Structure formats: C-alpha cells, structure tokens
C-alpha cells in the first residue's frame, strides 16, 4: 500500500494504482475523456493533468503510478485554464450540432463544455470532414465527432479481442476506422458505442427515437444463459435503447443481441388476442410434405380472434374432456427456458396438481 497526499488530503491506495485511482478514491472530481477503468491507460486527452510536487510539468493522473509521499494538486487556475484550452481545441474540431446530436445530454464532451462555460472558441479553424458514412446496420459511426480518445479501439482489442478498428493515419488526419476505411464488419457487440464519450458512435436504431426524459428500468437480458444485467430506456411505452451499467455482473459489456436486439418487443407482429383455429390443421403452410417451406405467412387467417373468457373456457372444457376420456397421463406440458422461474414453477404445478401428471418438461435439451 502507498500513501500519498492529494489536495492536502492523505489517501492510501494499492501499490500499482495510478494517481487517478487515488483521486477517485477521495471522490475528487477531475475531468477525463480517454480514461476507462477496465482499459489500459492512454493519456491522450490531457484533461486529467495534475501538478505533482517535484515534477516540473503537469502530468496526466491516469498514466502516472502512485509513489509513497507523493503530493498532488488537482486544481489551480493554471490547470483549469489548460483544461479549458484542451476542451476548446477539441471543440474547434467538432461539429457544432448538439441540437440534433443523438448523444446530446449523454455526451461527456458536451457536459465538460457546459461546466467550463465554453461559449466561444478562440481556435476555430479547419475541421475534419468525412463524407462517408458507415453502411453497417447497427452502429452509426460519425467520425467528425470523434475526439480520438481511443476507448473504442482499446475496448475492441482488450475486452472483445476482435480488433475491428484501429487508429489510422496520423496527426490532425488521425482517424479511427476499420481496415482500408471500409464499412465496419465485426461482432457488433457495441462495446465501442458503450464507451464512446461523444456522439461519434451511436446505435443506428436509436436514431431520433428520443434522448431525454427517458425512463430507465434495470432488468435481465432475455437471450443466453449469461444473465447479463441490462437497462431498458423507455420513451412513452416503447423500449428505445438498451444499455448496461459498469457496476453490473457483466461489467457493462453486452453482445450484439443483448445490446441491439430489443426491437421485437415493439414488433407489430406480436400476438395481441387469443386465437382459436378455424381451418383444419393439414392446411398449414409448414406441413409434413414440404421440405423447403416458403417463408410462412404465419397467417392469422387460420385462426379467429377470441375473447380471453371464450378461449380459456374452451381450453378448460377440452382438457377436462380429454382427461376424463384418456386419463391425466394423456396430457403433457412443455414449458420454457425463456419464461421466468415463477412461470415455470406455476406451470409444473399446473400440470402436476391440476392435470395430475408428471408429463412436464422443457427445452433444456435443445
């Protein structure tokens, strides 16, 4: 353990910590755009510069290892002026379109500009203009808004192990892009979108669906067995985006399905009324003889809509009839690994206690 002093306060942290870790431990707020606790330090944005006694120049807290007895000052008029200049420079090469930006209100650059009260820019000049938009279906990549913090590059390499993007070119022309500046072709986990501090990376399906006053509900991903914690962002009654918080068991990381495959919830194809068959079974499209069926109309024409009362009574009558005629073991229930514990519990209880058979199973095997 190492003890150091930050703004006059003593703090003890683990040996391999950085100055930024120590600052965070004291809950002192310090701006940063390129730092992420799960990624290797980068030191590119230069916002977390601090003064360290004995070092002539300001140093980035995110890259500097702590040492015993170190004395750190996190703020001074000079440091704040430098941070302000950094922000001004970043904004001088950034589109001025917060009005229509998907990330407005959820953008760290905008937030910092607000806190530093940057109204006008001393350094306006040439801005990077990229005509091409990425054609992939998931991730909107607006590289004019990119501040080159490199979090996306690091998360893609260090967390996802894919390396779909990297820094390319250099100097003012530096750009983060897939090889040969082609369209993104990757696993579309969206980890890069999750760590992007600006509007450079967003979900294509989020576009103009809403960005403020969203209701947030923490829940569980409905796909695989990992059980990732997700947060649904809701506007009116629609889920318009999925995120995950860093403090969850999945550390905020998701896969393409967890992050982007929520549109089925609002799908117009959802079943909304009980249906009772009107056409005999043999005529269904997906029939025994056809080996390569055309895409099903999944037609509701085979059925008529019914009220719940009618449907439930109909089922109850039929089950009673069959149970009386053939005994309870002639009925079976198939439950679902997609349903909740409570539903599964109740389902098997229904089959066992109400129907009177142990003919209950689910799809664990597939």
């Amino acid at each position, binding site marked *: 353990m190492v003890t150091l002093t930050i703004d006059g306060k003593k703090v003890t942290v683990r040996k391999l910590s950085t100055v930024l870790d120590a600052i965070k431990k004291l809950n002192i707020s310090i701006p940063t755009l390129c730092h992420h606790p799960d990624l290797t330090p980068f030191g590119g944005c230069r916002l977390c510069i601090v003064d360290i006694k004995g070092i002539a120049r300001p140093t980035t807290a995110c890259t500097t290892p702590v040492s015993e007895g170190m004395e750190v000052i996190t703020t001074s008029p000079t440091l704040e002026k430098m941070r302000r200049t950094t922000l001004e420079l970043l904004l001088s090469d950034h589109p001025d379109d917060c009005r229509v930006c998907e990330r407005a209100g959820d953008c760290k650059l905008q937030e910092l500009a607000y806190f530093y009260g940057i109204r006008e820019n001393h350094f306006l000049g040439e801005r990077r203009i990229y005509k091409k938009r990425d054609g992939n*279906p998931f991730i909107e990549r607006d590289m004019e808004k990119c501040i080159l913090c490199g979090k996306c590059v690091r998360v893609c390499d260090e967390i*996802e192990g894919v390396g779909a993007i990297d820094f390319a070119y250099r100097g003012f022309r530096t750009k983060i892009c897939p090889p040969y500046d082609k369209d993104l072709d990757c696993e579309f986990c969206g980890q890069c979108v999750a760590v992007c501090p600006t509007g450079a990376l967003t979900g294509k399906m989020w576009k103009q669906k809403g960005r403020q006053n969203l209701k947030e*509900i923490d829940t*569980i*991903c*409905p*796909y*695989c*067995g990992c*059980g990732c*914690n997700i947060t*649904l962002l809701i506007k009116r009654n*629609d*889920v318009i985006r999925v995120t995950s918080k860093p403090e*969850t*068991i999945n550390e905020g*990381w*998701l896969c*393409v399905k967890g992050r982007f495959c929520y549109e*089925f*919830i609002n799908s117009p194809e959802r*079943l*909304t*009324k009980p*249906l*009772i068959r009107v056409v005999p079974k043999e005529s269904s499209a*997906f029939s025994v003889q056809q080996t390569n069926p055309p*895409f099903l109309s999944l037609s509701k024409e085979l059925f008529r809509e019914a009220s*719940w009362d009618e449907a*439930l009574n109909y*089922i109850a009558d*039929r089950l009673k009839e*069959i149970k009386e005629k053939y005994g309870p*073991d002639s*009925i*079976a*229930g*198939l439950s*679902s690994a*997609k*349903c*909740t*514990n*409570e*539903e*599964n*519990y*109740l*389902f*098997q209880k229904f089959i*066992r*206690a109400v129907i*009177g058979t*142990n*003919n*209950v*199973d*689910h*799809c664990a*095997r597939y």
Partner: protein
Amino acid sequence: MTNSIPEAENHDVVFVIGSNTTETHPIIGLKMKKAVRKGAELIVADPRKIDLVRFATVWLQHKPGTDVALLNSIMHVITKEGLIDKKFIETWTEGFESFKELLEEYPPEVGEKITGVPKEDIIKAALLYGNAIRPGIYFAMGITQHTHGTENVYSIANLAMMTGNLGRESTGVNPLRGQNNVQGACDMGCLPDFYPGYQKVNLQGVKEKFENAWKVKLSEKTGLTAPEMINSANDGNLKAMYIMGENPVLSDPDVNNTLKALNKLDFLIVQDIFMTETAEIADVVLPSVCFAEKEGTFTNTERRVQLLRKAVEPPGESKEDLWIITQLSKRLGYEMRYDSAEEVFQEAGRLWPALAGMTYKRIAKKGLQWPCPTPDHPGTQYLFKGGFPRGKASFSIVRYREAEELPDNEYPFLLSTGRHLFQYHTGSMTRKIDAINKIAPEAYIEINPDDAKQLGIDDGKIIRVSSRRGSISIKAMISDRPRRGMVFIPFHFREAAANILTSNNHDPISKIPEFKVCAVKLEIT
C-alpha cells in the same frame, strides 16, 4: 456451473470442449479472453475452427462424437505423468483403481486414431491441464447433444476428479446453459422426474411434501420427457399438449416427425408472444407477454437468481403467463391465489431450501447464487467447497462408443447443427430485428474448402442437403471452420430448417437428441 462467471478470468488453464463460447455465451467468452490476456493457456477441443481457436495454445480438432476417446486419452497421459491428485481421489471419490485400468486402453496413439487429433497435441493438452493450478473446464451442447452425451459429461467429471480440480475458486467444471433461464426451468421442476429443487417424484416423502403444500393428490409416476412426448403423440397415446413459450417444430430434431406427431394430437395449446411454426398448428393460441412486460426472476448459468422488472405495458390484450395459468387452473377447479410474482417465488423457496434465503429485495441489486438457504446467507459462489454433498463421488467407467448415425457411402458427410452469434434459437425474436436480418439474413451450410472443391461446389451456390429424414436447399459457405468430411448448419432458419435433417436418436439417460452428429449428402442443384 460449479464456478461463477467472474472466476473465469482467473483460471491458469481454460479447457473449452464442445462450446462455441464467444458466439453462444459472448460475455463468458470475454472472461475467457481476459484470462488469456492475463496469461492463461487455452485448450479448445472442437471439430470446428471456432473463434476461440484464435486465442488457443492448443486446438484439438477431434471428429464429432469422439469426446470420450479424446478425454480418456488425455486422462491416460495425466495418469502416466503422475499428475493425478491422490489425496482428492482418496478423500472424495471411489472406483479410481478400476477406472485406471480402463484408461490403459487409451494411450495417445489410440486417441489419435479415433479422434483424428495428433497425439502430440493430446499430450500437450494433458500436460497443460494436468499441471494447472486453477483450471476450469467449460462445455455446452457440443458435449451433451450426442447419443452418448451423458457419458461425455461423466468423462469430464472423471477428468476433474482425478486431478482434484473441483471445489476451489476458479477451479471446476462448468456446463454453460444455453438459454437465459434453462437453469431456472430445471430448478423449478419443469422436468418429468423432479419436483422443484431436483426432488425426485418417486422418492419416499417428497410427494407427500408437495401434496401437503399444494393440498392435492399427486402422481408418483415419472412423466414423459419432451422427445418421449413426441413419440407418445405419434403412437396415439398422448392426446393433448400445452406448450408455453417453446417452438419444438423448429427446435426439435426431425421436423417432419415432430409435425406428424403434433398434428395427431386431439388438442394443442400454444402460448407465445409471436405466431411460431408450432403455434401455427395449434388449436388455441394464447398471447403472452415478453420479458420487458413482467416481473419475475431468471436464474443464469452460474446459478444466480436475478430480478426481472416490468418496463413497459404489454401490447393489446396479451396477458402474463402467471395470469393465464391461474385463470386456467381456476376453470379446471383448482384455485391458485397469488397477488404477485414474488408470492410464487416464496412458495418455491419454501419447498426448496436452496432458495429459502432469497427475497426480491435481497436479489434486487446483483442477484444471489443458490444455494442460499437462510436470509443472511451470502449465496454460493462456487460449488463443492470441502467435498460433495452426498459423500463420495464415483468414477464412471465410460468407453468410447460411436455415434448412432455415422456417414456412409450413401450419406457421406457428418452434419452438426448449432447456433451462430447473430441469431437466437428458432429466430422468433431475433428475426424480427431489421439490423439482424441485414447482417445474418439466411441459412447457410459450412463446407470445408477441400470438400467443396472435390464436389465442385462454389461459395454462395444453393445446394441440396439430404438425410434419411428429409432434404433442404441451402446456400453453401466455403469455410475452413469445419474439418474435412464435416458440415455445419445453424438451426435458426425455418426456410432451410436444419432439423429437417437431424435424427431423433437421443441419449438413453438424458434424452438429449444427437444434434451434433447425423449423416447427410450434398448435391448440386
């Protein structure tokens, strides 16, 4: 899983066999990759060059269905090299001596002959695992979906036991459960032989316990498993089925057989959020609600019970499954009274001590891993700490057996089915997503480049694939993923349903169908 997901990053050796983890359990895949970054060695045993192979120290490309031979051979080397954990074997197991004799039959040369894996690689893998301090074994359907799937699992257990690699942090055996709540559905007793909490239906006292709790007479006869239901329907014995949130027409093997069986039923109820292939042949279809529209709990693959919260109102007149079941129950003369999902959860907890200590409030933040028997119990991060709950575990004598249906002259290719990253199961959810339909719109069959060349099949061509049960037209994808003689089809696509081809052969004990091996032929159309 005996371990927890976060423990995965701290293994020193990760042994993945029969799991395409990065595609089917991406977040666990991340942990494995992190382990590799932190210096762990990765052993991948898979007939396909799955993405994880990129990170592997050694890749064992064994022939599908030869897992037992591969594992026995690995264990042969471990025994010969003296890498067994004698103390663990003595304290916690029985039957090792006769098991050791069995291993004599599987020197690496024999392993190589059966599995097609060079013996050097078998030895390398054995030394890596045998010398590891915190190894973890991961497997999924690649192990279980065989006619000898149970034997595969026993074999894995043997390996972990003989090396004493169980019951410690970041050390254990970890089956990965495929769907979000497979674990929960099993826990909750949606199994023909178990009440909730794996309490046998025919065990003295158990039935009485549930009869008392539910205040009703219960059957002591073990029920039918899902494949048996299909057979029974085909035989005309089963007359009615109630299917909640499943799509067996597409997910079960031998689609034609499944359809025939379900069509024979007098009455079929399907309860789902979408019109599915199975709902289409139902007599009544009930609209239920999706995960975002209800409250409840899911149990993930690491036994973590987590809280699902209602986020939006369901569409139209669709209703929660709980409401539907209680309504039906009432109409059938059995009143169920629950004011909330949590009341159901608490009832389950009263009947299964492993859940007894959990409440919605306790699991609200990060969930809890069962067993969690008391209100102050922190949950169980990993299993078998300090031994097995039922005393000593036995080594199982398992010999390699061939898969049921192997390629022959008429059907010369071996077909495996499975998932890919972008789609999910029968696609009833993911295929409603525009972006997914752009990136992964259609079915394909992976063919090894050498095989394709020999047959004159070009990449992207539509070819005909047939088995003894049916045939489909499907796009060829020339890929170095499958080994020679093997093809792979993802089962998500109804237009070229892989399960039209698969066989109904299944493991005699677990009743899991042999999705990973059947014989097919390829023809240019």
